[in-house]
């Protein structure tokens, strides 16, 4: 929208960038603190919150039912069969891990890039990361068949001489995901300490004062505390940044180091990472839009956030599109019959429909994000986020299933059909994720108050005479 009608005097526009401002004007340190802390400290929990928790809890029951039946009967209740030995469990694992990437990207990479607009959304994006990793981590555990022996995945000295295969990317996954989960939790918690101190000071009930006091680790907000806090944040951001790349890269190796056409392709690492960020941002939008509406946070999570997240989605979506394009092109350029067939089958085989769903959701429809109107339209962005999340799930389905069900030998071809337990488990994890998220927004500050205050004009460092004048000297 390059038009001359964009006004330079609009208070909602940043005079430097021409973008919509990060926080709506009119806020003070006090108003920001009150608005966010009230959600946690209020004695009057909204009825809608109870309703949401109840529904999510009901879906968690479905998950527990599916898991119980799984433990009783084994993985045979799923749709796995020769030749598709990896099905929904791996699809869901990769999808959930991908969802988590946006949190780390927002909290770590955008921090290093000094992107202050992240301040409004980083806390719940980080929470989302942790809950997504919880859901993701469950799938490999239940997929091993005997989850009570899951600790065998870790290399530890034992009398059975059982030692994991270090050359297998599945073992690398164990390290990558557990490191990722650890850093994400530490980053999330340390980032929350100043806010926990604020909640401790503002809590009216002894229980609140005790628990927030315990969690605040003696935070006093002194200069030394702030200095250490900033240093810790930067160090953790530095540590977490390679993790954004490494986790999904390692997951892409699960497929790419094999020699199955459709899996063995060198573009997988960057394209998996981009896809993860793509779906992660889509999930942030899916969560942010109802939250800002329900808690009246439109002035803190503004159109600018939607616009920027839309741009990130567009960028990562185009990288993903480049990946699809290169895969398709190289299946021809390779002059390899197997590669060529794998992609022909992916496009036009019995499960070709899944590929076209993926292309529609991940490539075709998101092109509307080029439009500033779409990026700044709340309803359309919500729809777009759901579309992308659907598309990214199908991407993993296409990679896993359509590459396996027709391999080199036609005599070993088969098909794949998910069972009700597959669907139930997946839907159940959606419930678990939502359930945890409901608890989080009620009991912890979902928007970082301390970081939001930095965005206010009052926090800018002023030239000394100017500041003295404002102070009334």
């Amino acid at each position, binding site marked *: 929208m390059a038009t001359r009608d*964009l006004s330079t005097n609009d208070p909602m526009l940043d005079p430097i960038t021409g973008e919509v401002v990060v926080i709506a004007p009119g806020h003070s340190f006090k108003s920001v603190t009150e608005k966010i802390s009230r959600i946690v400290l209020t004695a009057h929990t909204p009825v809608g919150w109870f309703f949401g928790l109840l529904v999510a809890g009901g879906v968690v029951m479905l998950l527990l039912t599916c898991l119980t039946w799984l433990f009783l009967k084994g993985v045979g209740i799923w749709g796995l069969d020769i030749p598709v030995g990896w099905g929904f469990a791996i699809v869901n694992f990769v999808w959930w891990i991908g969802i988590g990437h946006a949190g780390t990207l927002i909290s770590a990479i955008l921090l290093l890039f000094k992107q202050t607009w992240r301040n409004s959304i980083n806390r719940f994006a980080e929470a989302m990361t942790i809950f997504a990793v919880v859901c993701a981590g469950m799938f490999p555990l239940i997929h091993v068949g005997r989850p009570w022996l899951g600790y065998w995945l870790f290399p530890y000295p034992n009398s059975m001489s059982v030692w994991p295969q270090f050359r297998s990317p599945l073992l690398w996954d164990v390290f990558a995901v557990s490191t990722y989960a650890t850093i994400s939790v530490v980053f999330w918690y340390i980032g929350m300490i100043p806010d926990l101190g604020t909640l401790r000071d503002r809590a009216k009930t002894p229980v609140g004062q005790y628990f927030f006091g315990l969690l605040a680790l003696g935070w006093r907000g002194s200069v030394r505390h702030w200095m250490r806090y900033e240093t810790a944040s930067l160090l953790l951001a530095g540590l977490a940044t390679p993790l954004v790349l490494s986790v999904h890269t390692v997951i892409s*190796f699960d497929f790419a180091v094999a020699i199955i056409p459709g899996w063995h392709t*060198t573009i997988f690492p*960057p394209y998996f990472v981009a896809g993860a960020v793509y779906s992660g941002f889509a999930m942030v939008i899916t969560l942010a839009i109802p939250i800002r509406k329900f808690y009246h946070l439109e002035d803190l999570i503004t159109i600018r956030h939607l616009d920027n997240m839309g741009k990130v989605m567009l960028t990562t979506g185009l990288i993903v599109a480049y990946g699809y394009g290169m895969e398709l092109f190289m299946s021809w350029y*390779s*002059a390899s019959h197997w590669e060529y067939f794998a992609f022909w089958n992916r496009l036009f085989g019995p499960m070709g429909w899944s590929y076209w769903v993926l292309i529609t959701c991940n490539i075709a429809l998101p092109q509307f994000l*080029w439009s500033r109107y779409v990026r700044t339209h709340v309803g359309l962005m919500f729809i777009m986020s759901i579309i992308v999340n659907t598309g990214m799930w199908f991407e993993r389905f296409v990679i896993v299933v359509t590459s396996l069900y027709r391999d080199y030998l036609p005599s070993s071809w088969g098909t794949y059909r998910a069972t009700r337990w597959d669907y139930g488990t997946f839907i159940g994890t959606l419930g678990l994720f939502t359930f945890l998220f409901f608890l989080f927004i009620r009991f912890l500050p979902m928007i970082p108050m301390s970081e939001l205050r930095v965005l206010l004009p009052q926090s800018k460092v002023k*030239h000394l005479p*100017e500041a003295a004048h404002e102070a009334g000297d």
Partner: protein
Amino acid sequence: MTNAHGHATRALTGDPAASLGLMAGWRRRALTFGAVFTILAIVLVVLAEVMEHDKFLHLLTSWLMGAMLCWGFSLGGLALLMVQYCSGGKWGLLIRRPLEAMSRTLWVSALMFLPILIFMKKIYLWARYSNPTDVAQALERGLIDKAQAHALNWKHPMLSPASVWVQIVICFVIWFGYMFLMNRWSLQRDADPQPNVPFWQKRFENISGFGIVVYSLTLTALVIDLVMSTNITWFSTMYGLAYLVAQGYAVLALSVITVVSLSKAEPMKTILRTTEQHDLGKLMFAFVMLNIYLNFSQFLIIWSGNSPEEISWYLDRIRGHWGVIFTFDFIFHWLIPFSLLLSRDIKRNKRRIVMVGMWMVFARCWDMFLLIEPNFSPRNLHFSIGILEYIAVPGAMISFWVVAYIGQLGKRPLVQTNDPHLAEILEAEHAHA
């Protein structure tokens, strides 16, 4: 002095013409280097013909290397220019004019591609055997193997002289269009008496956003045509992306060298603060990491797959003396810049960051040698006079390209005065920055 936000500011004082004096000196030096390398190249070519009967093969392949490097700076400059318009940030203002100058040398790169296209039969199998009959005869005579014959016939729609000519012409027309618009609008923005910040911001964002997509696709097409296809059977889906990042690696290094070296005189002396120099250093570090990430991922996947169609590319670069070049590529391209750029002091020291930048440009040249030459002398690297042409020919080409680049750089003011980030950059540096 304070600005509208109440922050202390500095002013652009001093004589901007001092920068022109600096540039004139660099230009003279580049011309001298160009002349010396040209004489050296002529001597080496003659010697290679007389003593090794090279049939100009090394001249053409080393020319390809030089052309790809110079084109990398021109097109990569245009791409990074578009990236900084989309990403925003103060660093963009600092390197914008050097990037614009790089992009305006696109015509030099276009000229450099002409000998490659004219003598393509000497370099590329697909040009030498451009129809099924030729392929069959070459196979019969044992000049190519079955896999190559199959690949040549299969890839004919894309890799034939006519098709490659058309692709390259289309790519250059597109790039010239973008280069023209980006540079023209930049001047118009400077001349705007009452600049409307949001308008210009959106205008550049809109052209750049789509431009980056077009750049990625056209770059991929060109590097497949001209570099990857020097090994007709090999393929890698990562190749275009890895090449793109490597191009950014070198362009950023050259931009930093230019900006920091220009800060000996006004106006860069005033506007290059240590904070922004540090930021540019961090961006260089990010490119170093991204570059090794992509290359290592490609290596790991191909090595693990160990399939004959793919692994040969790496075996050709690891076996024999190529292993030394390959190891040094890893050290030069990643280990050294990684180790150096970890240091905050180096990133904030003008002399040292220029040295790192120069090292990165050198590492890119080394990498380009490894991308091209093993396809023509696989299995082992033998020392020959022809191999030395890889120093002299690209050396001469890059020197003359630098002359053109400096010439373009001197044509415009080094700072875009209508950019609102200028006010921020002119603020005094804070202790915590």
